[in-house]
Every structure is written in C-alpha cells, then in structure tokens.
C-alpha cells in the first residue's frame, strides 16, 4: 500500500475515534458506540503499525524504533510535503 493511502486511512480512522470519543463522553454505556469505537481503535492501531514499519515514526515518542532511529528524517508530520492530498474536499452539500 502506498504511503499516502496508509496515511489517509489512518487520518480517517483517528478522526472517527476522536468524534466517537466525544459522543462517548456523554454516553458512557452506549454499547453500539463502544463496539464501533473499539473496532476503529483496533483498525487504527494496525494501520499505524504498518505505516511506521514502512515509513518511520509518526510521533517523536510512543512510536516504535525500527533498525535505526528515523525521527530526524524529513519531512516531519507538520510539513506540507508530508501530508496526503485530500482532493475534492470542503464542498458544501
């Protein structure tokens, strides 16, 4: 899988987790939401591990180190060329 593909999938899954987390803050016993939340976290973890194995750490801490320490490699996640193109976004309904 392409780097951009993986990054996009991860961004989407992390966003879903954040939004479901907000919902769960006020619905702590909602089983359906919890199941969905947990399955998304699982999927996000898998994608994150795949990404980091192939392309290096996404965070300066809590990411696994591979054969050597890749964090100093550029681009860093906040740099424009790091991020994927999300074409056709932002249009109104």
């Amino acid at each position, binding site marked *: 899988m392409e780097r951009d593909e993986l990054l996009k999938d991860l*961004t*989407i899954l992390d966003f879903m987790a954040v939004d479901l987390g907000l*919902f769960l803050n*006020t619905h702590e016993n909602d089983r*359906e939401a919890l199941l969905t939340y947990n399955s998304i976290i699982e999927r996000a973890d898998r994608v994150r591990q795949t990404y980091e194995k192939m392309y290096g750490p996404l965070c300066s801490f809590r990411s696994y180190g591979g054969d050597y320490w890749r964090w100093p490699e550029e681009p860093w996640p906040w740099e424009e060329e790091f991020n994927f193109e*999300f074409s056709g*976004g932002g249009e109104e*309904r």
Partner: protein
Amino acid sequence: MDNACIKATWHREMDQNMQKGLAEAYIPFQIYDQIYEPEVGLRRGTIFPELDKPYSGKSLKLSAKFKSIYQMEGEE
C-alpha cells in the same frame, strides 16, 4: 427495540416532559444511530449526519412566527 425506534420514542417523551420555563434551555440528547462512511466523515468534519450542519450565517429553521415578530426580510 432498535436505535431509530428508541430515538423516536425518546424524543417524543422528551417533548412531553421538557416543558421549560423562560430562560431555561435544553439541548436534545443525541442517540447513537447511523454514522457516515469513514471518508465522508472526514470530509464533512463529523461522523454524525445529524450534526452535519455547515455554518450558513443564519438559523436553519426560523419559524414564520419568529420572522414576523422580528420583521426579517429576505430570509428563506
């Protein structure tokens, strides 16, 4: 009872029970229902279709009564 059914029942009860006085407000309690497909959620900025309300600069639902009271013109 599925979530859509719970939702309908819940909102009906809410409407009956929530007779608020002046200056008392409440926000309806969200019930978990359908969520957007993953990529759509990121595009829309929420995974909940019922919360997908882009800012338009005006209220989505202004009643005719409200509009006549405030003599608003040119509003949808």
